[in-house]
C-alpha cells in the first residue's frame, strides 16, 4: 500500500492543504528551466525535509518510485536518438539536444512521482477524497473515487471466485486457446460489477444519499494552510531564482 500510518505534523495536516501543496510543488518543478540543474537538487532537498518531518523512510518512497522505470528507459534512450550537435561520452556519440530532453523527463518526472508518493504516504485514500471534496472537485468524481476504493476489493474477490469456478471445471488459463473463456469471463465480470453497482446505488439512495458524501474531514485554518504551504513557498523561491539566474 502507498499509505504509511503515522501521526506526524504532515500526517495531521488537512488533506486539502496537502493536495494543493503537492499540485503547486509539481507546477514549480515543471516550470523550472531544464538547464538549471542545481534547482532540481534543491527540490529534492525540500522533499527530503518533508520526508524527515513525516518520518517516512527514503526506502519506502524509493521502492514505490520503481513505477517510473518505463519513463526512465525513454529518458535514457533519448541521448542516442536526438539530433543536433553531438558530444562524446564514455566513447559514445550522444546528442546534446537528446541528452537535455532526457534529463528534463528524468528530473521532472522523478520529482513529480516523488511528490505524489509523499502525498500518498501521508494521506489515506479516504482523506484524499474528502480533501478533493473540500476543494470543490465535482461531486461525481469524488463519489466515483470513493466507490472505486471500496469496490476494488469486492470486484477482485468476485473475479477470484469466477476464476476458481472456471479452473475447477478444467479451464487452464495458461493455454493460449483458452483465452476466449477468460475474455468472456471479463465480460461477465463487467456485467456482474455493473449490476452490483446498481444495487449499491439503490442501497445508498435508501439511506437518503443525494449525491454528496458526508464530510468527516477537518476544516483547514489559516495556520494549517500557512504551515502546509511552506514547502511550496520554498519551492517557488527556488523556481524564481532558477528563472532569474538563467
Amino acid at each position, binding site marked *: 500500500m502507498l499509505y504509511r500510518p503515522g501521526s506526524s505534523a504532515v500526517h495531521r495536516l488537512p488533506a486539502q492543504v496537502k493536495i494543493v501543496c503537492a499540485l503547486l510543488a509539481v507546477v514549480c518543478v515543471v516550470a523550472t528551466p531544464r538547464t538549471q540543474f542545481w534547482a532540481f537538487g534543491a527540490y529534492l532537498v525540500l522533499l527530503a525535509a518533508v520526508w524527515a518531518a513525516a518520518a517516512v523512510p527514503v526506502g519506502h518512497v524509493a521502492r514505490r518510485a520503481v513505477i517510473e522505470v518505463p519513463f526512465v528507459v525513454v529518458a535514457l534512450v533519448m541521448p542516442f536518438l536526438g539530433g543536433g550537435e553531438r558530444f562524446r561520452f564514455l566513447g559514445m556519440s550522444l546528442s546534446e539536444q537528446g541528452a537535455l530532453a532526457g534529463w528534463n523527463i528524468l528530473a521532472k518526472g522523478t520529482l513529480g512521482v516523488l511528490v505524489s508518493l509523499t502525498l500518498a504516504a501521508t494521506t*489515506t*485514500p*479516504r482523506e484524499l477524497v474528502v480533501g478533493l471534496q473540500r476543494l470543490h472537485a465535482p461531486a461525481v468524481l469524488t463519489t466515483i473515487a*470513493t*466507490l472505486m*476504493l*471500496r*469496490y476494488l*476489493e*469486492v470486484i477482485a474477490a468476485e473475479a477470484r471466485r469466477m476464476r476458481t469456478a472456471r479452473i475447477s471445471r478444467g479451464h487452464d488459463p495458461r493455454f493460449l486457446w483458452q483465452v476466449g473463456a477468460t475474455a468472456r469471463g471479463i465480460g461477465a465480470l463487467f456485467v456482474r460489477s455493473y449490476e*452490483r453497482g446498481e*444495487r*449499491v446505488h*439503490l*442501497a*445508498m*439512495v*435508501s*439511506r*437518503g*444519499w*443525494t449525491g454528496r458524501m*458526508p464530510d*468527516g474531514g477537518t476544516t483547514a485554518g489559516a495556520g494549517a494552510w500557512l504551515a502546509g504551504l511552506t514547502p511550496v513557498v520554498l519551492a517557488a523561491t527556488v523556481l524564481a531564482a532558477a528563472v532569474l539566474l538563467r
Partner: protein
Amino acid sequence: MTGPPALLVERLAYAYPDGHQALYGVDLRVEPGERVAVLGPNGAGKTTLVLHLNGVLSGGSGRIEVAGLPVSRSTLREIRRRVGIVFQDPDDQLFMPTVGEDVAFGPANFGLTGEALRVRVRQALDAVGMTEHVDRSPLHLSGGQRRRVALATVLACDPEILVLDEPSSNLEPVARRELAEVLLSLGRTTLMVTHDLPYALQLCPRSVLIDGGVVVADGPTRDLLADTDLLAAHRLELPYGFSLD
C-alpha cells in the same frame, strides 16, 4: 386502533418498463410494533414491493403511507428516513472504509452532525453488538458480523419500520440465531421478506403470503405454515424434518 398504521399499502400495482407486470394490486396494513413476514416463491413480487416502500420504485398505481405520510416525490426524503431497508447482500450496503463511517452515512445524509451523530452511531452499533468493531473495515468482518453492521447502518437512521430482505440468507446457524436475538431485542415494527419459513415462525407472529403479484394469504404465521396445501400451491415448503401441528 388509534393513530395511523406503521405501513399502509393499498391496491399497489406495478409493471417494469419492459412490460413485466410484477404487482397486481397488493393490500397490506402493518400496525406499529408488529413483526410481519412476507413469504412467497421467487418472482412473486416481494422485492418489487420492498422497493416501493421507500419510493425507489414508483409510477404504478395504488398508494402507500408510512406512519400516516404518503409516499410521493415531495415526501421522499422523510419516507427514506422512516423506512429502513436492509438489503440481502451486505456487500451492496456497506461501502465506506470503516464500520463507523458506514453507520454514520445514513444519519449524516439526514442532517445529523457532530456529537449527535456520534451518539447515534454508538447506539446503533451497540444495538447489534458490534461496538468494538467500529474502526474496522467491513471487508474484514465475517458474514454474520457484516449482516449485523448492515442492520446497524439502517437502525442509525431511526426508522419507523424496518424492512429486511432475506436476512438469514448465507448465514451459519449461530450467526442466524444471533441475528434473530438482535431483531427480537429491537422491538421495532418489522417487515421481513424471506424464504426461510422456520425463521419467519421464530420472529414474526404474523405472515403475509404473496404470489403472482397479489396477497394470497394473511394470518398468524403458525397457521399459514401448518397449511401444507396452501404452501405447496405457492412453491413453498418447510425444510426436511420440520412439521407443525
